[in-house]
């Protein structure tokens, strides 16, 4: 399979050079966490990484370019290191699309991007932060405590070597996978299946992520300190676990669906709400 893929990469139909890929990768590494916001997370960093490549790829088609730019400044978040796989895939898909392969619809690109970002965040965070960044610390910090300056730097160096090496490897891998996947999937007519699978995985993961990362609990207690104390959060937990975070996500979802993408407004409202609820001791 990987042989076929490499051949495909060599085809005449290439716009993206290895240097383009390298630059996109470097910009991703440079920017990834810098423009992170509550609403779209790493969206701008993703766009920053692809900015030049997209302009090259779609240079004859400003309309398509604009659409692609929109796609790649939309909400995105993943592990910075493992996520490079997505960049590689997306760049090759956009390239194929620019070359006229109309089977590669925006929907495919979007659903793959979102379907992959969750799982790669999950595995990447565990491995990078849970293992690569942690175990060397456990080994070398005690030596640093004994005064070794070198030991103070070793965990950092291990982490750097791993992250840069692996993310660049994945970027290339993703690019060639994208080529292969495109050819293979198109031939087998399984595109819809792939979109479906990616969408389902993506949505399920957004569910897991929401449950895990949205923190919203009430602190309200009625008749506090007595034997007949009633803790509101306990009642809510008895109804539906994490009902408040769920309501929050769904509420925002419905708000956006109905009132359009007024993110700043939502952020401000949420902050005011949080301050008010905190002031009154409700959360």
């Amino acid at each position, binding site marked *: 399979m990987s042989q076929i893929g490499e051949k495909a990469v060599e085809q005449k139909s290439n716009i993206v050079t290895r240097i383009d890929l390298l630059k996109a990768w470097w910009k991703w590494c440079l920017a990834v*966490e810098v423009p992170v916001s509550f609403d779209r997370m790493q969206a701008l960093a993703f766009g920053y990484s692809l900015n030049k490549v997209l302009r090259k790829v779609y240079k004859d088609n400003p309309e398509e370019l604009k659409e692609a730019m929109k796609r790649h400044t939309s909400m995105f978040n993943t592990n*910075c290191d493992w996520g490079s796989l997505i960049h590689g895939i997306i760049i090759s898909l956009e390239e194929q699309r620019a070359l006229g392969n109309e089977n590669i619809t925006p929907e495919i690109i979007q659903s793959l991007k979102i379907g992959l970002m969750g799982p790669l965040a999950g595995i990447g965070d565990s491995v990078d932060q849970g293992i690569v960044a942690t175990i060397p610390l456990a080994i070398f910090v005690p030596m640093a405590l004994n005064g070794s300056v070198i030991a103070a730097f070793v965990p950092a160096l291990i982490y750097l070597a791993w992250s840069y090496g692996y993310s660049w490897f994945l970027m290339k891998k993703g690019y060639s996978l994208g080529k292969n996947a495109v050819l293979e999937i198109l031939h087998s007519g399984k595109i819809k299946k792939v979109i479906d699978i990616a969408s389902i995985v993506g949505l399920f993961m*957004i569910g897991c992520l929401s449950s895990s990362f949205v923190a919203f609990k009430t602190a309200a207690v009625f008749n506090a300190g007595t034997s007949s104390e009633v803790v509101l959060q306990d009642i809510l937990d008895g109804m539906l676990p994490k009902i408040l975070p769920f309501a929050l996500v769904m509420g925002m979802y419905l708000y956006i669906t109905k009132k359009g993408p007024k993110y700043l407004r939502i952020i401000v409202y949420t902050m005011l709400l*949080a301050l008010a609820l905190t002031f009154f001791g409700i959360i």
Partner: protein
Amino acid sequence: MVIKAVLVGLLYWIAMGRANYFFSFAFRKPVVLGVFIGLVFGDVKTGLIYGATIQLMYMGGIEAGGNIPSDQGLAACIAIPAAIINSLDPAASVAIAVPFGVLGVLINNLRRTINSFYNTKADSFVEKGEYDKLSTFSFILPWLTNGVLYFTPVFIATLFGPSVVQAFIKVIPEWFMNGLANAGGMLPALGFALTLVVMGRKQYIPFFVLGFFFHAIAGFSMLTGAVIALCIALIVSMFKQNEEGELT
């Protein structure tokens, strides 16, 4: 002292400003910052010891979804200078570090709030096809803007000593600090809600809900969630031939 304060402020900006993420991630470790702050104050060894001691508190802890459990960089950049200047006991440096580790979480929330502005700007540049401006607003500007956020508190704290900063913090009502922290807990909802919108497949929302409550009930890791999700998706896709006429 001003120069030292500037240097420590810059160290913190390098550490948490996040340009070049992998580097900043490695650099922000107290054990590393300790060496550099030590250098600034002319005593690498002492800085190292303080840094390594503070590091012990932050061994694990995963930053996921843009949330940081605590800001080890701020903890280090405030506590180590204070400890060096006052020749504190390492344990005492830890005591100073802890509250600033928490405060840093608020700065990160503030940063993510401010950054929303750049997103809005970006949209209009895309609309107008000004892709160079888009680039500028995607990295350099947010980086500089946020630099203010990171530089300032550490600069001030080093200049006036952390006690002044602590006094200032005490002026801010506690409910306000807590309120900001709570907002930080709630705001990630926006990113997820937005993804739901972006996905645009209303008939698949049940998978989101299932993922949410399976996780809420059983509390597994993200990777476990991904494996389960993939299995479900593969099984479901087996039966998904005729797409038309779906419930939408």
